[in-house]
């Protein structure tokens, strides 16, 4: 619970400061519409390998997306 509270507090504090973080104007965002500028350029691969690495390795997390469980683990 402490971790959850501190994490939410962190986001709130960060959100409060975010007005100073306007760095890219709307007319400058054309590159971010390109596939190669995505953090997950191939969504299906990201989903599949997330599942594979979850099965083949002992670590998890850090992908900010939901990953359902299965008996392979």
């Amino acid at each position, binding site marked *: 619970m402490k971790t959850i509270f501190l994490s939410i507090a962190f986001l*709130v504090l960060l959100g409060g400061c975010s007005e100073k973080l306007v760095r890219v104007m709307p007319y400058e965002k054309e590159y971010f519409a390109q596939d190669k500028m995505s953090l997950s350029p191939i969504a299906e*691969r990201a989903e599949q390998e997330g599942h*594979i690495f979850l099965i083949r390795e002992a670590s998890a997390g850090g992908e900010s997306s939901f990953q359902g469980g299965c008996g392979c683990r």
Partner: protein
Amino acid sequence: MSLKHILISLFSILILPVATLASNLKDSASIGFNTYNDTGEVQVYSPTLSLFKKFSSHWMLGLKMRIDTITAASITNGANGGQVDVVTGASTTQENPFDDIRYAPTAMLTYDDGENTLTFGAYYSTEKDYEGKSVFTNYVKQLNEQNTALGIGFSQSFDKWMPVFDRALPKDNRNETKLDLSINQLISPTFSLQAVYSYMYSEGFLSSPYHYVPQDDIAKFENYPDVRTGHAFAFKGVYLLNNANAMNFSYRYYFDDWDISSHTINVEELHDFSHNFTSGLRLRYYTQTKSNFVKDIGSYTTDDKYFAIDYRMSAFDSYTIGVPFIYKMKGGDKMTASIDYYQTTNNDYIKSWYGVDNLQAVFTTLTYEFDY
């Protein structure tokens, strides 16, 4: 910053404002086919289907279906699969006793007003010896003229083991709680960063019901602690090198209360070969430490409380190299594909259980996406 300011900020983030901006939702669908093959004699062929349908300007329903056809399911445990019967006494006279099919549907409901995206979802997975049930929710708030995005996600699973032979598990459940916090920030017109923190709590039967200690003097199944708490910190970024090339990179640090910690580095370079075809190269390196209860093979005694022979509880590294393909068609349809090769370092536990020095795998994806 005062407590009042914090509470006001929290309230403004968690409560959806009146919708006034344009939604990013659209009707779309995809079909795909994924494969996975490894030297542990596991082969998985997975058709996938997803469908997203708007039913108002701000609301959308999503359905995803994945079917895994598995030619060597978890119960075979690789090359030593038949040996499980020595411990369990289970019969092997069934036809294709280890083949399995996993059905995994996911349903999602998404609200999006251009500044706030809220998703609720439910996941169900059923296979011969395991049932997975999860609910999840995710909220993303765009700030700062969409230069900053704050995200919070939560999922809770209620899974259940159903071993294919008559084994009374100390617990048959595996419940997992996961909280993800993320922040995306545009740094420049050609550079964006993301930071993610994940909290994970697992409770229940956390080992495989089939793994057993391969020692002549011990007839024991694996036994892990029934609670595990993990944390992951990840940093990701994408940087435009020039008009035709972009570099995608990420780093993750993970640790848990079983004393497993890991570092993961992923780098991918993507190149536009034409206005509608993009490809490149990705490299991934992973290294982890061992758990605090795993012992060397052959060194367990009947007095031990925990038994672990799964290589994932030991220290090892892995390497992945892959090639992605993105092909955009007329009308906005898109075809994506990928092929990756994965290999672990040599490992005594892999040698003992799978009969090979290391695990090598090839996995592929092929997807066709379109709006309708």
